[in-house]
């Protein structure tokens, strides 16, 4: 009887010792920003490069966006992409946890650095009311590229040829709304940005889906586009809800391309406007030094 009990115990112990094999692997966690991060600008953090190391699996993600290691700013989500307003003026850490279906987690913290080289100045112009210019500098081997944009909407003296807001504060914030023919011939050293120039700025500001927000960010290093609206058929429309900025590209004799941004959307898009419409203006220039 004792031998029987011992045999039973032996079998139970052997069963316990040889229980199901367990290979434990946590996922590979990888993430990056889809565009170089800029302080206060929205940026997409993309962890879609993460992958499970087991054949059939799914992954969930959560983020420590301020990098304080104290908590997770997002809940677990199956979406590997998260849009954040980049919180660091110079540099900081952002953390990611990736969890597989077995609940195993890989955690990854990475430092992010913003490396903006810019200056703001007021150039000599042939306009009666001057404007400030922000110059972004990009260094390449043997080559300096200076990208100069007016960081205020162009403001002109009162005239019947364009629209000026009556309040001084509005004039300062919104500038003048003018027809394309006036916008295209304003200043000899700075020109109306072409559609390609604007597209480059859109790319710089996180791409079309985020540039509408980033172009409006009230930060010294941004263009700080405002939402003056548009004047068509003699009426001011969409004030504080949309901004229309002329491009230098004509569609035909009657119309030209403009950039549109909105208060309720992060998107920046090009629209076709009648040249007689009164819209906002930014000017720009590019300098190459070798």
């Amino acid at each position: 009887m004792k031998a029987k009990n011992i045999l039973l115990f032996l079998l139970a112990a052997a069963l316990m010792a040889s229980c199901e094999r367990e290979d434990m692997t946590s996922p590979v966690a990888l993430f990056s920003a889809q565009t170089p991060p800029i302080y206060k600008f929205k940026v997409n953090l993309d962890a879609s490069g993460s992958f499970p190391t087991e054949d059939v699996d799914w992954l969930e993600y959560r983020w420590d966006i301020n990098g304080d290691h104290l908590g997770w700013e997002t809940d677990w989500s199956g979406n590997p992409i998260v849009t954040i307003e980049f919180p660091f003026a110079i540099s900081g850490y952002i953390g990611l946890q990736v969890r597989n279906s077995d609940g195993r987690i890989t955690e990854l913290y990475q430092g992010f650095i913003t490396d903006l080289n810019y200056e703001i100045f007021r150039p000599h112009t042939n306009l009666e009311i001057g404007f400030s210019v922000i110059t972004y500098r990009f260094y390449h081997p043997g080559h300096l590229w200076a990208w100069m944009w007016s960081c205020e909407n162009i403001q002109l003296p009162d005239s019947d040829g364009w629209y000026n807001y009556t309040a001084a504060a509005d004039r300062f914030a919104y500038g003048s709304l003018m027809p394309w023919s006036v916008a295209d011939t304003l200043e000899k050293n700075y020109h109306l940005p072409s559609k390609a120039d604007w597209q480059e700025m859109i790319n710089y500001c996180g791409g079309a889906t985020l540039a509408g927000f980033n172009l409006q960010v009230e930060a010294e290093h941004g263009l700080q586009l405002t939402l003056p609206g548009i004047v068509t058929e003699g009426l001011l429309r969409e004030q504080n809800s949309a901004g229309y900025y002329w491009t230098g590209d004509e569609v035909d004799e009657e119309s030209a391309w403009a950039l549109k941004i909105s208060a309720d959307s992060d998107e920046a898009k090009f629209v076709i406007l009648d040249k007689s419409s009164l819209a906002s203006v930014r000017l720009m220039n590019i300098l190459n030094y070798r």
Partner: protein
Amino acid sequence: MKKLIISMILLAVGGALWSQENGSLNFSGSYIYMPQYRMSGAGYTISLQQSLKPWLRLEIGGSYTLGSRTIKRNKTVNNVRLLDLDYHHAAYSLHVAPVVTTGNAGVASLELFAGPVITWQSNVFDLNHYEMPESPGYIGRMTDIVYVNRVVEGTFFGGIAGCRVNVRTGENWQVNLGVSAMGIIKAVSSVSASIGVRYCW
């Protein structure tokens, strides 16, 4: 502290058994395998037996075991270099078991034993170990290597059961071969094969 308590218990009970009229002291080395994590290693066991009846003894033993496993990966997936994963195991265990003996003690005998085990284990399991691809200039990393592991450490309980074949080689000496299985709750279980030498008095 736990190891000290286990050692003191072992010494006290062992001393009590040593003082008995009939008993034996066994030293064995073992190969161990941990099926759940496929680790393997080696260990040794010291045990004392007291004869209660011609066919029944009481055994107390202590063992130390080490095990490991390396999962070779060394491949690149999506520009990520997957590095090898290592498992490590170390354990001190103490068991008490009644032993049923059959056969001719003068020549060869078979022992069956089973009893409870208390063990202190330290296990480190690599969950991942990889080298990330080169990062864009706006990302700064202290290292490109990511390492994730899980540690299972502490005192656990379980049971042990096994058998030994003893062959008499001298007036007081025996050699034995044995196999055993040790099931541990919430930690690492193992099976082992052992060879040992025993002094009887």
